[in-house]
């Protein structure tokens, strides 16, 4: 410590003055620093803070866009929108949570499941992200909420739109359905709209395929809000832009008629316009109600659909694979003529065909037949003889040219395209060489052959038109070039099919009840169990019965429409499938006559599709609630 002079009052006063000035100077420095800091915040950082202040003040709410319609060829709606009244919660504005939730529970009669979901969503949600309470309220419930709104802070009633399918279950597999986006879809899209209540995206079928066209542009509402979320005033509102309309080639009336005509059967039907490949009807029945899916299907309804052995959740028109049976015989006839077989050459059916030491049975003993009459009678012996003579490798290319085994570029469909076998395929698949008996089985549409109903319809349309028609659901341009078949070959196939219905064939009972318009067709009966099992699949348990198939076109002389009908376990093409095809074609020319026939049938079946579905579901629910295992209850 250094030596310092003695401290006097004078020097102490001097020290005081000096140090006071030092303190004052320090204070001024701090003051200057504060002024500089304020200048920095309010001048240099001004832009940033203005932005932050605005984003505090202004709250942007997205208004989900109205979804585009899906309409048929005549502009009739297959999917449109209906007004839906809904109630949401804005978590940030929910102050007395228990009280408000309690009120909602009473007013809207929410059950435990719904309350649990709301609680869960509220926990996961943040800030202004609305949480759905209930959709599709009745006007009365909506009004009940509206009048109590001042006592229910945080509740946001909204008049929105919901998807509606006017023809109910008739279009389920074709159109698909919409649903609330799930977490993965949101992660992928990163679109805030995806977590806006009431917004739905296409989940299946055409709704999914055309999502980009159908979705539209969201509207927005800018409001000034307080920190507690109270809306002070509206700043601006921008209307939403509805999604584009998707025009299908479908004929809505025919679609609905065909769906109804399928009755209680499980199966598929496809109708194609022979002029351009337009798909006019695309049916797989039974079907789920897309309205239920779009509104958020209940667990029990979903369980009911899953438990049904008629498989309403599978689109059988594209995903159902069936042995086509005799429906491929006209195709085989074309292949034979193309390979030089004279259609007038006769073969005698003795009730079967001997191949080495095996005897392949025919369903009858048809005697001497030429090619058209072999088609008419659906004689197996004749085609065994052809197949043995030509080999299936000569027939398979024709099958493929007619669209069998082909996967089509078809909007929104997910196809299983089956198999048209040949020797190369068998070698690849089983490492075995092709045998003559494989050819015999394949030519009558059994064995390795499997096709879907769409392919059958395309095949028929191609035979009928002579052109390589490509099926389409929307207006796309295809070449549809002529098939490389001789007119004679096609004529033989058409003549055979004409005789099936209008001659002495297997479907004479399904002639069109119309003057001047005749239908040509070919029945098919596909075995579910092998012939060896004894029973011919004509009785017994439903799931072991034979499938009934029918392909047809009309009018015979100038084909306009082609169709395929598959009735699962219908026991026979002429018995189950042909009558359905007959009524569908009748509808195309004479609606009243067809409707009369349908109404008579529906009276026997127990009402329209919706009536039956509602009743079956109610019965299932009653059974499921009592039965020990809901999966097997019905």
């Amino acid at each position, binding site marked *: 410590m250094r030596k310092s002079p003695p*401290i006097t009052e004078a020097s102490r006063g001097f020290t005081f003055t000096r140090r*006071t000035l030092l303190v004052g100077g320090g204070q001024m420095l701090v*003051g200057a620093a504060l002024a500089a*800091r304020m200048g920095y915040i*309010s001048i240099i950082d001004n832009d940033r*803070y203005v932005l932050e*202040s605005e984003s505090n003040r202004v709250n942007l709410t997205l208004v989900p866009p109205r979804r585009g319609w899906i309409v048929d060829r005549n502009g009739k709606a297959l999917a449109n929108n209906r007004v839906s009244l809904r109630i949401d919660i804005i978590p940030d504005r929910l102050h007395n949570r228990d009280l408000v939730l309690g009120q909602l529970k009473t007013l809207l009669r929410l059950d435990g499941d719904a309350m649990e979901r709301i609680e869960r969503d509220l926990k996961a949600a943040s800030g202004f992200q609305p949480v759905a309470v209930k959709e599709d309220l009745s006007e009365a419930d909506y009004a009940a909420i509206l009048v109590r709104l001042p006592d229910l802070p945080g509740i946001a009633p909204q008049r929105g739109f919901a998807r509606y399918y006017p023809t109910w279950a008739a279009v389920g597999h074709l159109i698909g359905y919409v649903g609330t986006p799930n977490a993965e879809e949101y992660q992928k899209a990163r679109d805030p709209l995806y977590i806006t209540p009431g917004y739905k995206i296409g989940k299946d079928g055409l709704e999914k395929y055309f999502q980009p066209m159908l979705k539209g542009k969201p509207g927005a509402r800018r409001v000034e809000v*307080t*920190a507690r979320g109270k809306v002070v005033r509206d700043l601006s509102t921008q209307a939403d832009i509805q999604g584009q309309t998707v025009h299908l080639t479908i004929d809505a009336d025919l679609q609905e008629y065909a769906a109804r005509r399928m009755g209680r059967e499980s199966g598929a039907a496809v109708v194609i316009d022979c002029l351009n490949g337009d798909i006019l009807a695309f049916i797989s029945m039974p079907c789920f109600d897309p309205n239920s899916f779009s509104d958020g299907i209940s667990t029990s309804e979903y369980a009911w659909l899953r438990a049904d052995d008629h498989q309403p959740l599978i689109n059988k028109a594209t995903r159902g694979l069936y042995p086509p049976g005799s429906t491929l015989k006209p195709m085989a006839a074309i292949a034979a003529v193309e390979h030089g077989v004279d259609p007038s050459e006769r073969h005698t059916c003795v009730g079967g065909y001997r191949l080495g030491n095996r005897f392949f049975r025919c369903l009858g003993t048809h005697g001497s037949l030429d090619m058209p009459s072999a088609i008419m009678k659906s004689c197996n012996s004749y085609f065994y003889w052809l197949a043995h003579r030509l080999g299936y490798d000569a027939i398979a290319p024709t099958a493929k040219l007619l669209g069998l085994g082909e996967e089509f570029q078809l909007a929104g469909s997910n196809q299983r395209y089956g198999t048209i076998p040949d020797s190369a395929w068998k070698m690849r698949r089983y490492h075995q060489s092709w045998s003559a008996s494989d050819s015999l089985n394949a030519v009558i549409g059994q064995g390795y052959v499997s096709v879907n109903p769409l392919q059958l319809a395309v095949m028929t349309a191609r035979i009928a038109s002579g052109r390589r028609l490509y099926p389409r659901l929307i207006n796309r341009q295809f070449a549809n070039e002529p098939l490389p078949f001789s007119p004679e070959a096609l004529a033989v196939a058409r003549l055979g099919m004409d005789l099936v219905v209008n001659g002495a064939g297997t479907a004479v009972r399904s002639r069109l009840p119309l003057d001047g318009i005749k239908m040509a067709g070919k029945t098919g009966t596909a075995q579910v169990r092998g012939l060896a099992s004894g029973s011919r699949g004509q009785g017994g348990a439903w799931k072991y019965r034979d499938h009934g198939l029918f392909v047809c076109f009309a009018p015979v002389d100038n084909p306009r429409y082609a169709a395929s009908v598959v009735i699962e376990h219908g026991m026979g093409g002429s018995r189950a499938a042909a009558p359905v095809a007959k009524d569908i074609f009748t509808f195309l020319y004479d609606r009243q006559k067809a409707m009369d026939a349908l109404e008579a049938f529906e009276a026997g079946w127990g009402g329209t599709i919706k009536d039956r579905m509602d009743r079956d579901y109610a019965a299932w629910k009653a059974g499921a609630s009592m039965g020990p295992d809901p999966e097997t209850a019905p």
Partner: protein
Amino acid sequence: MIPVPPAVQRVPWKLIALLSAITGFGLLVLYSAAGGNWSPWAWQQGVRFLIFLGAALVVGRFPLRIFEDFAYIGYIGVLILLIAVEILGFVGGGAQRWLNLGFMNLQPSELMKVAIVLALARFYTQLPPGETRGWTALWPALLLLGLPAALVMLQPDLGTTLAICASAVVVMFVAGLPFWWFGGAALAGAAALPVLFSMLHDYQQKRVLIFLDPESDPLGAGYHISQSKIAIGSGGISGKGFLNGSQSHLDYLPEGHTDFIFATMAEEWGLIGGLALLFGFFLLLRWSTRVALKARTRFGQLTATGMTMTIFFYIAINLMMVMGLAPVVGIPLPLFSYGGSSMLTIMTCVGIVLAIENDSKTGTRRFH
């Protein structure tokens, strides 16, 4: 020329004008913060200011001798009140900072800010000049400071503790204690910072941490600082205009009429309003510093410097807090923030400084 009577001349008109200008500006901000209403804040604040101003002018007429004589007694009285608050808080459970006197809630820690300055000034006035650099100059002062500081810290009230310490240290500094003592104490304090930090309450620690990184908790405790900066920054140079502050009017700014009133003001009046207010405070502090320099007695010198520091500390910490330069410690802006306690303290300080000024006009300078 109209003769001005001496009684009127003796009234410190300039000071009254300055105080009224600062407070009046504050009233406008309170009016706006209430959404364009004189109630509940502006009207009450205005009345309170008039009462306290009157009281300060009366206090300013007191002979300085009285403050010197009663410095220790006053200090002991306030100390007892602090202990009483502590005991009441202990009995009642939980922290307590005020005594309910029926007509108002008295915060003894606010009174201590004044009492500690008076007591220390008295102590250093009595201390013989030769002892200034000795041990005897330090330990009684540390005792005088340590007891109340510890009691207030126990409440716990970090902001007030710091205010008491700051004023006391400044009095000790201008009293002439060796320079290196302060430097050494500052170094020791910096070294002991981690230990002190660990002694803080959880919520105080959190405030400090969030001050260091406000964005770490934008919706929690960092919310105050973030929103305050948004309010000041979005005001820009000329502000959004009177009654147009969205941050304060839409409740994004917490405590917009008390601790964060500067942000409320800056949003509507911008940088111009902020600099004007800073200039007002500068004039006030310049006045009290001048009084200290011109004081007739040593007691007056030390007291005026201490009071200046007390006022300055309020202003500096509050402004640093709202601009994100200091943790949220809950110190109001003098004369501006709504609230009685801080105004009581400030006006007491102003009254005592006024008494010192009057004293220096009456007689010759003496320093003992």
